[in-house]
């Protein structure tokens, strides 16, 4: 109990050491007075009339109590003591005044009572009260002197001593008035500094009295918890409700641990504000023990650390993301079939992935920190190594190369490299990343494929040559067959002619007619053989394509057929712009010949037969047409008419071998052209040739 009391007293101590020393003198003085007063009172009680009545008795006790109040006031630097003294004084004045004792006694006692009034004045910084008290003491002393004389009490000496005693106290108090005021100012300044600090850090304070359970919040505590100023009722339960439910057990445990062990308390927890916002708070404080060592009070500071927490969380998330990314990259590097090797600026290996181990047979442990020259570089390449390294260090981009390399087992392999220099932001060379693939197998396969290709080409060439030979043989065969067929034919025709001439008179009946037929048959067979030879010649002729002006060629061919056209009474119009085509002169002339002959043949019997030859440029081709007003043909046959031996008419109606249009198609297609026909029975026919145009034309 006493310890508690002393501790409480200590807590009220004046902060400044010097002031504390000075105050202590006054304290001892006051304590001495209290003890003396209590001693006198005790003496009065034990030995009646040993001391004057106003010194002893109950008044003495009151007096001592008042002095104690003053002492408290001194120590605390607060007005509490003075106020207490004034209350006690007022009580005494009233009770004494109402007591049955005489005015004189009350008057003398009042002197003692006025002293605390003076002290209160001092403490309220009112000098005037001190003076009033002094005057009162003097006045009451005078009255007392008078009354004492009447009562026959010889106390004048005591009164004088008393006056001196009061004056002395007044002077002493005046002496220390400044100190008190200063200490009060200082306390206020301290409080102000504390407030500034709390404001600056948006900090809040708490003061938790464990005995009463009351919590006092200061600074920004209420704001941090999201409560309006003064809305907190000071109960721990009210505070607990604002703590996030998930964090409450932890907080309670931390408080309990700090309380039991009296260790500093520091805990971070979430606060759910009444409006639903969740904030992070950091509380730091400590428990203060009483004399028994039990925690009695807790003081602490609270700060809103939401911003920091949010930053921390972002940082944590960023780090987690980075870690995950690094893990994935690591996985990629570990699992990729491509070797990845990182070297530093001195070309010492700093990274060697599992694929590199597989490719070269050297483990990472064997390679790290070494230059791999002798281990994986083929002897033939080693001499070029310094130059290659200079190139890598100087290059801005990835360099690709294929080299021969060595495996640990001495096997030579072919590797494809992609070397990328690594640089810092200033461009300083830090080393390089080499990505490598073993392409030995691919090389082998490519070589094999090349070999196969070459072989294939050779075979194709051989086969082509063989085919060309066969073709040639076939042509020669067709040619000689046609050729040799003509000799007997000449015999048939010749002898039948001789028969006709030499034995004309001796043949009768159908004889001359038979000979006529034999000769006609021989003639038509001769024609057929000639056409076949012409057809085969189109193909056998060496392809010589030249630029040809169309109109002169057409005019020439038409002129060649002048007799035929006149005989058939066919009118020919030529309407051609200046056009040049890429064609074989002979092939094209033959095609035109055949088309004109064809037109004449099928215009026979038509009134006013007419052949129109025209053409126009169409892009990089040239369209040439030969139109007649002959008998025409049904479009269902438009394809067949270009086939060999295809005829749409009986031989006696329109003689022919069925080879002429086949020759046209062959000659035109040979130079990359196309040929087609449009017609309708009785409406004439138009034959179109699309030919490649000479490129220089029109430029």
């Amino acid at each position, binding site marked *: 109990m006493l310890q508690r009391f002393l501790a409480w007293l200590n807590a009220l101590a004046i902060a400044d050491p010097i002031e504390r020393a000075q105050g202590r003198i006054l304290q001892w003085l006051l304590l001495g007075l209290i003890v003396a007063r209590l001693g006198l009172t005790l003496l009065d009680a034990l030995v009646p009339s040993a001391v004057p009545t106003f010194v002893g008795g109950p008044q003495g006790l009151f007096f001592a109590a008042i002095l104690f109040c003053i002492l408290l006031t001194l120590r605390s630097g607060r007005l509490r003591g003075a106020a207490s003294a004034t209350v006690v004084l007022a009580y005494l004045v009233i009770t004494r005044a109402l007591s049955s004792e005489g005015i004189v006694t009350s008057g003398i006692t009042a002197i003692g009572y006025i002293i605390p009034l003076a002290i209160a004045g001092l403490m309220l910084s009112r000098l005037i009260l001190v003076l009033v008290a002094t005057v009162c003491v003097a006045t009451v002393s005078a009255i007392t002197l008078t009354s004492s004389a009447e009562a026959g009490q010889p106390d004048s000496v005591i009164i004088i001593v008393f006056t001196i005693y009061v004056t002395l106290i007044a002077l002493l108090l005046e002496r220390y008035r400044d100190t008190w005021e200063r200490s009060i100012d200082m306390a206020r300044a301290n409080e102000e500094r504390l407030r500034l600090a709390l404001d600056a850090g948006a900090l809040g304070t708490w003061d938790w009295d464990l005995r009463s359970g009351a919590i006092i919040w200061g600074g920004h505590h209420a704001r941090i918890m999201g409560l309006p100023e003064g809305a907190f009722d000071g109960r721990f339960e009210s505070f607990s409700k604002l703590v996030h439910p998930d964090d409450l057990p932890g907080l309670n445990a931390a408080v309990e641990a700090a309380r039991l062990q009296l260790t500093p308390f520091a805990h971070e927890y979430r606060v759910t504000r009444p409006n639903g916002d969740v904030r992070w708070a950091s509380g730091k404080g400590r428990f203060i023990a009483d004399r028994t060592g039990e925690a009695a009070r807790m003081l602490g500071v609270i700060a809103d650390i939401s911003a920091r927490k949010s930053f921390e969380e972002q940082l944590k998330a960023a780090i987690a993301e980075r870690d995950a990314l690094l893990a994935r990259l690591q996985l990629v590097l570990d699992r990729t079939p491509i070797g990845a090797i990182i070297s530093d600026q001195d070309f010492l290996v700093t990274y060697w992935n599992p694929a590199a181990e597989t490719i070269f047979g050297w483990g990472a442990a064997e390679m790290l920190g070494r230059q791999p020259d002798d281990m994986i570089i083929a002897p033939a390449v080693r001499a070029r190594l310094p130059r290659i390294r200079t190139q890598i260090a100087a290059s801005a981009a990835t360099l690709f190369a294929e080299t021969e390399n060595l495996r640990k087992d001495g096997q030579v392999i072919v590797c494809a490299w992609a070397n990328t220099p690594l640089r810092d932001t200033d461009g300083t060379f830090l080393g390089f990343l080499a990505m490598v693939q073993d392409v030995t197998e691919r090389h082998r396969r490519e070589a094999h494929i090349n070999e196969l290709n070459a072989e294939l080409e050779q075979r194709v060439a051989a086969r082509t040559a063989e085919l060309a030979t066969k073709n040639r043989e076939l042509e020669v065969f067709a*040619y000689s067959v046609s*050729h*040799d067929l*003509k*000799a*007997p*034919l*000449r*015999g048939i*025709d*010749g*002898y*039948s*002619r*001789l028969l006709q001439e030499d034995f004309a008179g001796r043949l009768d009946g159908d004889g001359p007619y038979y000979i006529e037929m034999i000769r006609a048959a*021989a*003639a038509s*067979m*001769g024609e057929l*053989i000639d056409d076949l*030879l012409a057809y085969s*010649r189109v193909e056998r*002729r060496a392809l010589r394509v030249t630029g040809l002006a169309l109109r002169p060629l057409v005019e020439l061919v038409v002129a060649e057929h002048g007799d035929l056209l006149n005989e058939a009474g066919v009118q020919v119009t030529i309407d051609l712009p200046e056009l040049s085509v890429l064609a074989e002169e002979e092939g094209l002339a033959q095609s035109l010949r055949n088309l004109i002959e064809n037109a004449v043949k099928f215009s026979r019997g038509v009134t006013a037969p007419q052949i129109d030859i025209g053409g126009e440029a169409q892009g990089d081709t040239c369209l040439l047409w030969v139109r007649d007003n002959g008998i025409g043909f049904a479009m269902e046959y438009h394809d067949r008419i270009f086939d060999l031996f295809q005829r749409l008419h009986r031989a006696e109606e329109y003689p022919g071998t069925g080879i002429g249009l086949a020759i046209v198609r062959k000659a035109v297609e040979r130079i990359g052209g196309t040929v087609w026909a449009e017609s309708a029975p009785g409406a004439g026919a138009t034959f179109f040739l699309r030919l490649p145009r000479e490129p220089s034309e029109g430029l």
Partner: protein
Amino acid sequence: MIRPIVLIEDNPMDLDLTRRAFVRRRLANPLLVARDGAEAIAMFDGWQSDQPPPAIVLLDLKLPKADGLDVLRHLRAHAHLGTVPVVVLTTSTEDQDVQTAYRLGANSYIVKPVDFDKFVTVVDQIDLYWLVLNHPAQP
């Protein structure tokens, strides 16, 4: 001395018809015939220097043994008969044959027509041109 006409022809019918065509022209020139290339070459090799050179050599290209072009080559290299006019009378219309024949010194190249009337006309033309109008070089 009347210069002979040399006919080098393997086909008996062609030979006969040619002979008949010449007969129709009532030519005075004797007709010497070789039936293959080798025989023709032998004929030219055995040609006596006092014998009159041929007025014309009618040469078929497709011949057994040595072919017509060999005969021509041989004839052109002949000491006395090198300048004798040679008319190639053949069924071949091959460009190759035509060109080779001319390059070897053929004077004319005629394709034998199937039609006998035309053939007779050809013989007439040969006769008129080579035996009447043309002035041969003296050996």
